[in-house]
């Protein structure tokens, strides 16, 4: 439910954010090469601006779309908002609990059972033991892994892993949801279920940041959007306006 653009309702504020990367021709990740290149004076790196002075605000209940071509800086922006990267300049302010639905299988231990992984991954996402114990049955039931929950993850099929990851990540009601493409995992039956779960998460009061190549999905889900191109914010506004402009540009 979008509740208006007031200061109290602001949940994300991105202010004059710049992100520079130092790209070197070849990656130097060991001491030996570093010294050789240092002696040969080959340690050049080229500054690359992934984001150039980006500012926008997201309000409570907003479904906020980010569109742009590959390399536009969409993922970098999401990582900055998720707090896993720090901007070179500018400020990012976030209010409320946040769950990133990106690479949901990250943080699993292959030697751990499904049960143990629920607690491990839950702890990584910042949940308490009590909360996870409460939600445990719900997670297992949704993932349909009742018979395999005490089997080590290395014996799971990739579909089973995806089901478990999806169930843990979406079994909470975060205030801010970060979504990179719409996730639908597993076999046809589970795919349908996960899509419904996603839709219910997207339709609730949560604020959603949604990144996609597909303007169709963005139009379906979002009410506002920005268009990034080569690190610059081209337009910001109601979703249809932004998507129209972006589609026109692609053609």
């Amino acid at each position: 439910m979008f509740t208006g653009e007031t200061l109290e309702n602001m949940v994300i504020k991105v202010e004059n954010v710049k992100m520079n990367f130092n790209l070197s021709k070849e990656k130097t990740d060991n001491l030996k090469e570093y010294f050789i290149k240092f002696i040969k004076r080959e340690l050049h790196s080229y500054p690359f601006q992934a984001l150039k002075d980006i500012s926008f605000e997201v309000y409570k209940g907003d479904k906020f779309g980010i569109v742009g071509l590959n390399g536009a800086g969409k993922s970098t922006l999401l990582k900055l908002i998720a707090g896993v990267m720090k901007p070179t300049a500018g400020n990012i302010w976030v209010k409320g609990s946040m769950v990133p639905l990106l690479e949901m299988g990250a943080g699993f231990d292959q030697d751990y059972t499904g049960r143990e992984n629920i607690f491990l991954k839950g702890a990584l996402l910042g949940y308490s033991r009590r909360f996870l114990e409460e939600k445990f049955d719900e997670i297992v039931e949704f993932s349909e892994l009742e018979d395999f929950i005490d089997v080590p993850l290395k014996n799971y099929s990739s579909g089973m892993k995806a089901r478990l990851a999806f169930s843990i990540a979406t079994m909470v009601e975060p205030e801010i949801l970060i979504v990179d493409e719409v996730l639908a995992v597993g076999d046809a039956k589970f795919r349908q279920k996960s899509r419904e779960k996603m839709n219910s998460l997207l339709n609730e009061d949560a604020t959603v940041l949604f990144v996609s190549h597909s303007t169709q999905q963005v139009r379906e889900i979002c009410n506002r959007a920005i268009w990034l191109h080569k690190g610059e914010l081209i337009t910001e506004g109601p979703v249809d306006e932004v998507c129209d402009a972006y589609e026109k540009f692609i053609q």
Partner: protein
Amino acid sequence: MSGMVTGHRFLYNFRKYKFLLYQLVSRDIKIKYRKSVLGIFWSFLEPLLTMIVLTIIFSTLFKGYGVENYPVYLLTGRLMFTFFSGGTTAAMRSIRGSASIIKTVYVPKYIYSLSAILSNFVTFLLSLVVLFLVMAVTNAPFTIYIIFTSLPIVALLFFTIGVGLIVATINVFFRDIEHLYGVLMTLLMYATPIFYPPSIVPASFRFIQDYNPIFAVINCCRSAFVYGELYDPYQLLFALVSAAVAMIVGLALFYKYQDKFILHL
């Protein structure tokens, strides 16, 4: 408020991520023992077998140098050193090993290094059971001073955390440090009087022992475990100061470069 969490929120973070730290430490320990057939007994058996072999070979040789109870003498040194080298090596790999999760979820990164060291510390504490067992069998003195060894052991823990943070940071930028560090640990192992008495080293090379914080800790513990005496307070002081210096350097280096980790993972 996960967006702008910085260094000075250390304590707040620590409370918030206590459950995660517990999860990571117990994961390391559980997996380690689940992978071996003998389970937890392996961490008892391994130092015990090494001790038996080395005792057979060296105990008569070093009797003349004032080493009374060779099994206890050896075991004390070995367990301490194994914790230091195992803990720092695990910490060194901790950041690279958690790359995929570091890229998706914000968690204070020191948690990964700290948990790697703490799980080694738990294994170390468990292996002290072997030490007490061998002490009982060899009629070593059980005195009140054994309780006092907790101080040098805490110093060793913090020294290990400090060094662990330093090598964890370096390893993100230079991954060949893993091989160098392995060689360095072997050299340090031989340079530290673990299986030989300190007096066999020529006087001109004694500085290697005098400025070795790990040896200071080993010395303190040997006073209690082997000789039933209180340790030299200066040895403890040296260990504590070394630990403090390592912690300051480690934290400073880690905090200075942690925002760049993600660009190199």
